[in-house]
C-alpha cells in the first residue's frame, strides 16, 4: 500500500549543529507535504509546508526540500537548539478532503 515513511528513527546532534531529517513518500500524486514537531505530552505542531510545484521552501531556521524524482522530503534545521528536541513527522496530503497521512516519525535528540 501507499505510505509515508522516515529513513532514520533517531537522530542525535550537538547543539549548534545543523540537523537533517529525511522522509520518503510513495504516492507520486501527492501535491502537498507538511512537517510537524511533536514534543513529549503535546500534540503535533506545524513547522513548515511545501507544495509539489516547489522544490525548496525556507522558514525561520528551517528549510524543507522536496525531490519529486526520488519521492524524498527533508527538513533541515539550522543551529539546532535543545528546544528542538522532539519527534518530527512528515505528512502527506492526499485527496480532496485535506486528509493527512503521517509517517512514523524521527526522534531528534540535541546534545548540549
Amino acid at each position: 500500500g501507499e505510505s509515508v515513511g522516515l529513513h532514520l528513527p533517531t537522530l542525535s546532534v550537538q547543539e549548534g549543529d545543523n540537523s537533517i531529517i529525511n522522509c520518503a513518500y510513495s504516492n507520486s500524486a501527492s501535491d502537498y507535504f507538511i512537517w510537524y514537531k511533536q514534543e513529549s505530552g503535546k500534540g503535533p505542531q506545524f513547522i513548515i509546508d511545501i507544495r509539489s510545484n516547489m522544490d525548496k521552501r525556507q522558514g525561520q531556521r528551517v528549510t524543507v526540500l522536496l525531490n519529486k524524482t526520488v519521492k524524498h522530503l527533508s527538513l533541515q534545521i539550522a543551529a539546532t537548539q535543545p528546544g528542538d528536541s522532539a519527534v518530527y513527522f512528515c505528512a502527506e496530503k492526499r485527496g480532496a478532503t485535506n486528509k493527512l497521512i503521517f509517517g512514523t516519525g524521527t526522534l531528534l535528540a540535541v546534545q548540549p
Partner: protein
Amino acid sequence: EAGVAQSPRYKIIEKRQSVAFWCNPISGHATLYWYQQILGQGPKLLIQFQNNGVVDDSQLPKDRFSAERLKGVDSTLKIQPAKLEDSAVYLCASSLLASGAFGETQYFGPGTRLLVL
C-alpha cells in the same frame, strides 16, 4: 487565540468498559479531525467532520467507535467496548476552511492518553 482543547488528558479503563473524549476546536474552524496515535507511530485519521457532517470515516472501527459533532462546534469520540489495542493517544485537530482547501493547516490539541487494562 485559544488552541484546540481536549479532555480528559488521561484515562485508564478496563477492557470492555466504555470511554468518551471531548474536543473543542479553535473558534470558527469548520473542519474537525480525530486521530489515533499509537506509541511510536504517527497519527492516523479516524474521522473528519466538516461543520456537523462526516467527510471521511473510512478508518473508524464503527463496531466500537462512534463520534459526533451535533452543533458543528464541539465533538465527542466514544469507544464501547474498549479493547487492549485501543490504548493510544487520541488527538483532535481543527482547520479553518472547509475540507479540500489546499494547504489548510491543521491545529492539534494536546491529546487524551488512554490506557486500557
